[in-house]
């Protein structure tokens, strides 16, 4: 039986035990007669033929594709988890979509007019159309923006509306999102993945592509700039890579070709918002914000915010920057507005409200409160400020007391059954309820909804996955998004890898990638040595292995050697993220650095993690601990890391790329110096030394060169020459330092005499004067000259790293409240 047939049979046949169990839901795919709904008719043949095996493959492909693209979503307080996408889309045909589209456009127009009134003349309040307490009692009403000196005719540029269906299939508005709506990036990513893994179905559907909407968004943002600028600068303001929708933000920035910045990247000067670019300040004209208004300006809003820009409110009041959406837009997210929208629509637009909202009663109104108290069992009580307070567990009398004490803070809402849709779970499709997020853009003189959307699968009020939303064309000649005239986007890569924070992430990108690579090579070399020793125990093997494990400890911190289990130690070096210096730790650092500059980089970087994660999983889950699995997984992880070289190779040679180079070669220098310090400074007999040196050569990718040059005779002098002074060996200290010098010199803040440049030059000169024969000179059991030299290298390399941070990566002190440092008496009005 195919998946959809089984699903249709399941949802149309009343089950014996479940009769009357859940609410009656409208099914998105199957009609009451068991046949596919009309929107699916065009694809019926393909869709109905899908077998569980097909969907299992598609589901695997989706998981892999999302992991390769690094698509994450995190709930507040949780570590970022993988984004989930169901294989079957929500399909809406042209006839069903048309009224929704008109309704959404009207709604955005209306919400914009509401904002303009609430932050202007407030006629809605004065005339009693909207109760004053709905507005004044909501934290989204921002009084510092509500001044007669401020006038923003179009405070709403991009809004989102969440919809759900009632049991008859009619769409109802659940909520409006106007502050900083998220989800467009996820919607686009869903489409990209689904079109790739279900190409036949996608082709057959004849749906609206989404790209023209992004072009329209880009042009709408450019046109939002104040005044008449030829080349306005637009940025996307993010709360940072720890944000729950960080992926979405970076995707939008990258797709639109605007830099993704954080509050610390911006300053206000003379009422203009400026971006720090290499010590210069460059003006910013439009900010697409993903930071909530409360956190946007420590001067006039929350004083303890580090996410905002001090003076931003003043800049917007003066019309010197345009914030999208306006800082006051959060007031629209109040569910207590819903019962008044029909009357407001009549008043402001002179029209009837087209899209009905979820039936809602505001408790601040006496009749509303009475209705809610009379229907507490059937209604859902919510706070108007959207605070995540769980009211469901409260005792009835506690809840009643809360409502009566502060009625204006609560609404009661009818529970909507929501429609259901087949959702792939454990090898079959089961019905799950869903909501639909839509997006509406002010484009030119009118509001245009995205023809498409983002569907969320919900369980107990939480999103458990997503679905792509396919809106079909009534006629194939209809242009995508109904936007024929939009120019395709050109130049969509943000060209500014420039603010210090971005350079810092690039620097650590280089360092962590190199650290992971070098450690993996070392683990592979040592593991081979260990295998060799385990198979053919010899007297020298144990001693050599001991030295090599010491090198690992030096680079990756103390581990599990006490346990005497070699493989446990290898696994720890590879997998233990809490072990500072482990491969896993380096990968986490790398991931976090890359997350901060996601918009700057090709999506291919996330593919590297897809590879390393899968390799780590195999090693972690291996029930039988075969030793060869260590080498196998380490090898795969190395493949993943090496693929990053391909990404950087095709990057624009801008300062961001230069900074990756500085980080990479600085780290390589440190790694080779530490490796040599751990392996070559003490003499342990010819045979042991030879074993160790061979592994060092293997770990530094220099074995072949060495063999060719020295014909198999492995001596410390030759190895040191190859790894320290040979400027043609890309693994040597000399080569790496030359690279650091070259990249540093190309950075805009470099003058030729900055501290890091001087220390690099000194070290290069010192290396040039170094005589290998002197270094290898023997003093008792050790090589004292070499020991001193390597220790000095570590010191100098550390100074270079500090200097780079000081000259290139500092953003200056963070903003602090005026009174924060005051140690004497505070000025309390008395």
């Amino acid at each position, binding site marked *: 039986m195919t998946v959809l047939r089984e699903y249709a049979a399941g949802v149309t046949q009343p089950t014996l035990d479940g009769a009357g169990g859940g609410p009656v839901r409208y099914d998105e795919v199957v009609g009451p007669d068991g046949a596919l709904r009309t929107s699916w008719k065009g694809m019926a043949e393909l869709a109905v033929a899908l077998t569980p095996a097909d969907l299992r493959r598609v589901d695997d492909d989706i998981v892999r594709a999302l992991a390769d693209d690094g698509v994450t979503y995190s709930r507040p307080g949780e570590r970022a988890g993988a984004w989930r996408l169901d294989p079957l889309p929500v399909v809406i045909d042209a006839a069903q979509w048309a009224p929704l589209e008109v309704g959404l456009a009207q709604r955005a127009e209306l919400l914009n007019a509401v904002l303009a009134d609430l932050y202007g003349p407030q006629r809605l309040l004065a005339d009693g159309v909207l109760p004053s307490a709905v507005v004044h009692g909501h934290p989204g009403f921002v009084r510092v923006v509500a001044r007669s000196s401020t006038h923003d005719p179009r405070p709403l540029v991009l809004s989102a509306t969440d919809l759900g269906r009632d049991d008859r299939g009619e769409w109802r508005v659940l909520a409006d999102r106007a502050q900083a709506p998220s989800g467009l990036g996820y919607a686009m990513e869903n489409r990209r993945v689904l079109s790739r893994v279900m190409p036949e179905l996608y082709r057959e559907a004849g749906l609206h592509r989404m790209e023209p909407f992004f072009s329209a968004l880009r042009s709408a943002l450019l046109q939002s700039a104040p005044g008449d600028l030829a080349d306005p600068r637009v940025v996307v303001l993010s709360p940072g890579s720890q944000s729950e929708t960080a992926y979405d933000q970076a995707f939008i920035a990258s797709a639109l070709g605007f830099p993704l910045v954080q509050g610390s990247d911006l300053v206000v000067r003379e*009422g203009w918002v400026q971006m720090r670019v290499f010590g210069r300040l460059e003006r910013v004209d439009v900010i697409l914000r993903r930071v909530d208004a409360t956190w946007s300006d420590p001067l006039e809003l929350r004083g303890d915010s580090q996410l905002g820009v001090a003076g931003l409110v003043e800049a917007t009041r003066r019309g010197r920057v345009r914030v999208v959406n306006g800082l006051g837009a959060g007031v629209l997210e109040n569910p207590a507005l819903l019962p008044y929208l029909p009357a407001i629509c009549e008043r402001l637009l002179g029209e009837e409200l087209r899209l009905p909202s979820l039936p809602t009663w505001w408790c601040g109104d006496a009749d509303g409160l009475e209705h809610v108290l009379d229907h507490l069992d059937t209604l859902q009580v919510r706070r108007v400020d959207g605070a995540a307070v769980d009211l469901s567990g409260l005792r009835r009398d506690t809840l009643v007391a809360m409502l009566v004490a502060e009625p204006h803070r609560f609404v009661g809402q009818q529970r909507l059954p929501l429609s259901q849709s087949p959702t792939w779970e454990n090898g079959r499709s089961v019905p799950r309820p869903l909501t639909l997020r839509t997006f509406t853009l002010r484009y030119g003189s009118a509001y245009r909804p995205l023809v498409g959307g983002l569907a969320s699968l919900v369980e107990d009020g939480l999103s458990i996955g997503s679905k792509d939303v396919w809106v079909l064309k009534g006629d194939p000649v209809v242009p995508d998004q109904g936007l024929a005239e939009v120019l395709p986007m050109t130049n969509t890569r943000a060209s500014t890898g420039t603010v210090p924070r971005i350079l810092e992430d690039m620097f650590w990108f280089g360092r962590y990638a190199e650290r992971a690579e070098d450690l993996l090579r070392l683990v592979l070399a040592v593991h081979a040595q260990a295998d060799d020793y385990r198979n053919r125990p010899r007297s020298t093997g144990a001693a050599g292995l001991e030295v090599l494990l010491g090198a690992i400890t030096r680079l990756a911190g103390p581990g599990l050697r006490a346990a005497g289990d070699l493989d446990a130690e290898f696994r720890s070096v590879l997998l233990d993220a809490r072990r500072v210096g482990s491969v896993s730790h380096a990968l986490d650092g790398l991931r976090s650095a890359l997350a901060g500059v996601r918009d700057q980089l090709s999506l291919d970087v996330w593919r590297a993690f897809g590879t390393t994660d899968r390799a780590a999983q195999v090693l972690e889950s291996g029930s039988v601990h075969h030793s060869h699995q260590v080498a196998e997984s380490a090898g795969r992880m190395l493949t993943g890391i090496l693929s990053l070289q391909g990404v950087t190779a095709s990057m624009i040679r801008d300062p961001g790329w230069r900074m990756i180079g500085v980080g990479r070669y600085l780290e390589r220098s440190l790694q080779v110096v530490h490796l040599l310090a751990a392996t070559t400074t003490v003499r342990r007999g010819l045979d042991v030394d030879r074993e160790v040196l061979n592994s060092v050569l293997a770990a530094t990718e220099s074995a072949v060169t060495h063999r060719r040059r020295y014909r198999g005779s492995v001596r410390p002098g030759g190895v040191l020459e190859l790894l320290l002074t040979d400027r043609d060996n890309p693994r040597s200290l000399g080569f790496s330092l030359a690279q650091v010098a070259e990249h540093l010199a190309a950075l805009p803040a470099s003058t030729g005499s900055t501290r890091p440049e001087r220390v690099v030059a000194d070290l290069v000169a010192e290396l040039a004067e170094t005589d290998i024969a002197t270094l290898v000179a023997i003093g008792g059991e050790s090589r004292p000259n070499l020991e001193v030299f390597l220790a000095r290298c570590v010191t100098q390399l550390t100074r270079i790293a500090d200097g780079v941070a000081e000259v290139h990566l500092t953003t200056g*002190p963070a*903003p602090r409240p005026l009174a924060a*440092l005051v140690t*004497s008496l505070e000025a309390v009005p008395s």
Partner: protein
Amino acid sequence: MRYAVRHTTTYTYDAPVSDSLGVAHLVPRSLPWQRVSSYDVTVTPTPGDRTADVDYYGNHVTYFQVTEPHERLVVEGAGEVDVAAPVVPPAPLAAPWETLRPLLVPGAPRAWAATDLALPSAQVDHPAGAVEYAARSLTARRPVGEAVTDLMHRVHADFDYDKTATTVTSTVEHTFERRAGVCQDFAHLMLACLRSHGLAARYVSGYLATQPPPGKPRLVGADASHAWVEVWLGEHDGADTWLALDPTNDQAVGDRHVTVAWGRDYGDVPPLKGVIYTEAKRSTMQVSVDVAPLPPDPDPTGDPS
């Protein structure tokens, strides 16, 4: 009475501040009973940017940004104010207090505007203690003037004036526990008492005359910024009517009170707040307020009532 007012705030840092942004509520409002002349805000070092604006509540507000490095920031508001005692006609004072609750009578004239000041605010929540405490003054059908004046008397009698009992961020509950505070705490407490029963009331930031007139006692709160409350008495003759009470001194606001700004609570109208960028570790702040009586206006034509 005419006064020369000077309010100076000085911050001194142990290392340079590269950038100071500030917002000041230092210029008194022009009111039917208060005339403001030649008033100015001076910032040293001279700000690279400054603007004067009027905020949501109609207060004068000054925005400035100093971008030259400095180890000392001085912000001074100074000028002349001619002030008379505000007069409230008897009729509004006689209305039963229950008729003046904007949330319960949203259709009453101007109730929509007063609603903002009847709701809890960031620094004035409505603890149960406030409801209970105020209930003894706000008895059934009592004339509003009498009821709120009684509340003021009780606050003055029950709470000690104590500068060590409080900080700028003290909560209403804290004041109830300590049974002590300063003018700001008493104002917030009064607001919580009034609003938790549905009345609309606002926080007023201002000054008191420094030297008492001959024969009158020196008032508490001079030499610093002062705070009191105003209670909404509804709309009369086309305008909102307010009763201004100073719980710290247990008296109606008179011609020794200079009104600077009002809002929901202190947070809407601090005399000065700001953001600095610095590596400094410590700073000291000095505040001085001087409200000196002047001879009567030589040009009495512009004398307010």
